[in-house]
């Protein structure tokens, strides 16, 4: 696997439109460095669209996306976890073996690697179970393990703890903290301000498709600059 970095990734005047309606943008953003950036904002603000743009899943209507290399090379260095975990219709182990085999790893090596990854997220006893039989938290852990098994430089997570209970959320957060320690850059969306306070090094605050605030989590939560951010943190409903 190439060790050359694919960061920074830069969005300049990036806009995504659907049926003539601006979903997000124009925004300028540079993803680099280390740590966890929380993308927060009300529903429909465009948080998911930003993650999808950075992963090349949504094409830009305007503006530009600067990757350090082609889309395929960059995606190899990225992991993406969807809000609703997409699992292959296979057993738990095969869900992890598949992406490794896509990269040309031999089955025996891929299986061993996958078993190690399952042990890391506490799913090794479910290896031969059908993925569909997992609980919501276990599914999300499996999706996270699949993203992490590729040793991504940048991990994009779309509300990975949505609709999970406290214990499942805690388990997911522990995995994310462990990934941060190994140097994985993480961008994740969340509606859970408690989680944002626990995990965030930086915050991107999005309203109506635009970045309203970007800075350290400490500053954002202690002294938000914009009235929208203050209102959001107070639990007010933004228009």
């Amino acid at each position, binding site marked *: 696997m190439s060790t050359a970095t694919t960061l920074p990734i830069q969005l300049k005047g990036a806009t995504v439109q659907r049926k003539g309606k601006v979903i997000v943008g124009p925004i300028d953003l540079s993803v680099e460095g280390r740590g966890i950036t929380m993308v927060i904002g009300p529903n429909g603000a465009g948080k998911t669209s930003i993650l999808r743009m950075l*992963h*090349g*899943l949504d094409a830009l209507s305007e503006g530009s996306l600067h990757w350090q290399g082609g889309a*395929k090379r960059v*995606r*190899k260095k*990225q992991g*993406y976890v*969807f809000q609703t975990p*997409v699992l*292959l*219709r*296979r*057993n738990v182990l*095969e869900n992890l073996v*598949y*992406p490794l085999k*896509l990269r040309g790893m031999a089955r025996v090596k891929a299986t061993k690697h996958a078993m190690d990854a399952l042990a890391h997220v506490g799913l090794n006893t479910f290896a031969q179970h*059908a*993925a*569909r039989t997992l609980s919501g938290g276990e599914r999300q852990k499996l999706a996270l393990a699949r993203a992490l098994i590729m040793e991504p430089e940048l991990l994009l997570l779309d509300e990975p703890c949505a609709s999970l209970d406290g214990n499942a959320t805690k388990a997911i957060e522990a995995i994310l903290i462990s990934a941060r320690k190994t140097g994985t850059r993480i961008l994740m969306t969340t509606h859970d301000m408690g989680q944002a306070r626990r995990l965030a090094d930086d915050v991107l605050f999005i309203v109506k498709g635009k970045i309203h605030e970007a800075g350290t989590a400490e500053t954002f939560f202690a002294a938000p600059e914009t009235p929208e951010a203050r209102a959001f943190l107070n639990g007010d409903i933004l228009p």
Partner: protein
Amino acid sequence: MNELTQGLLDAWRLIFTFDADLMEIVGLSLKVTLTAVAISSLIGLPLGAWLVVNRFRMRRVTIAVLNSLMGLPPVVVGLIVYLLLSRSGPFGVFGLLFTPTAMVIAQVIIITPMIASISHQVIRDLWADYHDLLISLNASRWQRIKALLWDGRRALLTAMLAGFGRGIGEVGAIMIVGGNIDHHTRVLTTAISLETGKGNFAFAIGLGLILIALAISVNLVTHWISKTERASTW
């Protein structure tokens, strides 16, 4: 009603005495149709998946044409294959007319659109789930098609069984290109047609019942082998 009862008795007698002619006809019926289904699946399943993952001009028209071809009249297919394989036709040199191979060719033409069309519909639903994930994992187009075919294999079995059902019960095309020659190209459907023409209704019904039993048996065995409706990995 008498003919139906006599048909049941005939069917019973033919099966349990292992009637040599019947076994030959059943064997050829299975051989021709299973070969045609195998070839059609090799063409139709990847084609159905390919149509799902690729975007190109005229794609919708292609899918509409494919769906329409499911209703291809077998007699017309038989006629066209006959003209192509006849001595004066472009493939006459191969001497395939009135052989089981000609019957397989006709069935492949009839079955392939059905398998491709059903598999397209099955895989389209799976693709809706997998689209973002497979792009995210950097799967190439061929790898996407392989993943869709593998993970959708149980549902795709339905497409293959539908193809088998159409093939095993087909009479118009194989009558024309096979000729219903005794001990050479006679299959269950053409034998039924012949016996009916001779006024031998009880025997024809007996063969018909065997044909139905055969179709059901193949379906059951296929489901049993593939573990459909039982604990599966998905």
